[in-house]
C-alpha cells in the first residue's frame, strides 16, 4: 500500500508517527540525499552523516511540513543543501578531493584512462569552487533537477540561480581547460 503512496501522502503518515512510511521515504530518497551532500562537501563520510541528519530532521519536523504547499523533495533538498553548506564552513580534517579520486581503469584501456583523467580534473575543479557553486552543479548536473527546482532547493530566485550556475560552469570550464589543455576544449 505504501509503495503506491506519494511522498506527500507518506509525510502525512510520518507526521502521525508512522515508522513504515518513514522507512519508505528513506528507501526512496536516502541515496539522492547522500549524493547531493557529497557533491557539495566532497567527502563520503561527511555526506553519509548529512544523509542521516537530513532524515532525522524529516522525522522530527514532519508536523511542520505542508504537502499542499510544497513537494517533499523540494523540502528535503533544502535540508540537505543547508546542512552540507554549513558543514563546508567547519574546519576540515580531510581534503575534498580525497573523496573524488577515480579508480584506475584496466591497463591498456586508453579511453578509460582519458575518461578517468578528465573525471579527476573535473572533481578537482569542483573541489576548488565555492560551496554554493558546487551545490548548483550538484543539483543541476548530478541530479538532473530543472533550473527552477534547483533554485528552490537552494532557496534562490530563478535569476539568482541562473547567475550562480553560469559562474559555476564558467569556473569549471576554465579549470578543466587549464588541466587538460587542448583536450578540455574539444567538443
Amino acid at each position, binding site marked *: 500500500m505504501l509503495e503506491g503512496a506519494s511522498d506527500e501522502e507518506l509525510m502525512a503518515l510520518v507526521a502521525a508517527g508512522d515508522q513504515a512510511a518513514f*522507512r519508505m521515504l*528513506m*528507501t526512496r530518497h*536516502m*541515496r539522492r540525499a*547522500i*549524493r547531493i551532500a*557529497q*557533491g557539495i562537501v566532497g567527502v*563520503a563520510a561527511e*555526506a*553519509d552523516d548529512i*544523509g*542521516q541528519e537530513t*532524515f*532525522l530532521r524529516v*522525522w522530527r519536523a514532519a508536523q511542520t511540513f505542508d504537502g499542499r504547499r510544497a513537494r517533499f523533495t523540494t523540502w528535503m533538498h533544502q535540508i540537505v543543501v543547508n546542512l552540507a553548506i554549513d558543514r563546508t564552513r567547519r574546519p576540515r580534517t580531510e581534503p575534498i578531493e580525497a*573523496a*573524488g579520486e577515480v579508480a584506475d581503469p584496466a591497463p591498456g584501456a586508453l579511453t578509460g584512462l582519458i*575518461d578517468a583523467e*578528465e*573525471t579527476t580534473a*573535473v*572533481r578537482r575543479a*569542483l573541489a576548488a569552487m565555492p560551496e554554493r557553486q558546487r551545490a548548483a*552543479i*550538484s543539483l543541476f*548536473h*548530478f541530479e538532473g533537477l*530543472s*533550473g527552477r527546482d534547483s533554485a528552490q532547493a537552494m532557496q534562490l530566485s*530563478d535569476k539568482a540561480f*541562473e547567475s550562480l*550556475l*553560469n559562474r559555476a*560552469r*564558467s569556473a*569549471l*570550464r576554465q579549470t*578543466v581547460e587549464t588541466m587538460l589543455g587542448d583536450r578540455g*576544449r*574539444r*567538443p
Partner: protein
Amino acid sequence: MTLDEFRRLAETWGGDIARWPEPERREAEALARDPAAAAILAEASRLDRLATRAAPEVSERRAGDAMAAVTMRLAAERQATATPQRLFALPRWLAPATALACAAVLGVFIGLVYPAISPNVAEGLMFGALLDDSIPFITVLQ
C-alpha cells in the same frame, strides 16, 4: 535571439535546449540549425558530459547503512526519553497512595522478619526508612 544570447544561455544551461528556461526554447531551437549555434551547443554538451561523469557514486549498501543508523539513533532517543516519562506519567494523586502501599509492605516485612522488636521501634524504623534514608536502622536492630 542573437547568437551572443544563444551562447550565454548555452554556457549557463548546457547543450540540451530542453533544459533551458521554457520561454527561450522555441527561438533557441530555430537558431540551433545555424552551424555556429550548433558548434556552441556541442561545446556546451561536452562540459555537460564532463560534469555529469564527475557525479559521486552512492551504493545501495551505503544508503542502507545510513537508514539503519537513522533508525538506531531514533530508537536510542526514544528509549532515553521514554523511561523518565513513564515514571512521571503517574497521576499526582497516586503518589500518597503509592507511599502508603510501600509503607504497608515494609511494615509487614519488618513484622515478619523481626517479630520480637517492640511496635514503637518497628514504627520508627518503618517511617525512618520511608522518610529519611540516613537513619541507620540496621545498626539499631543489631
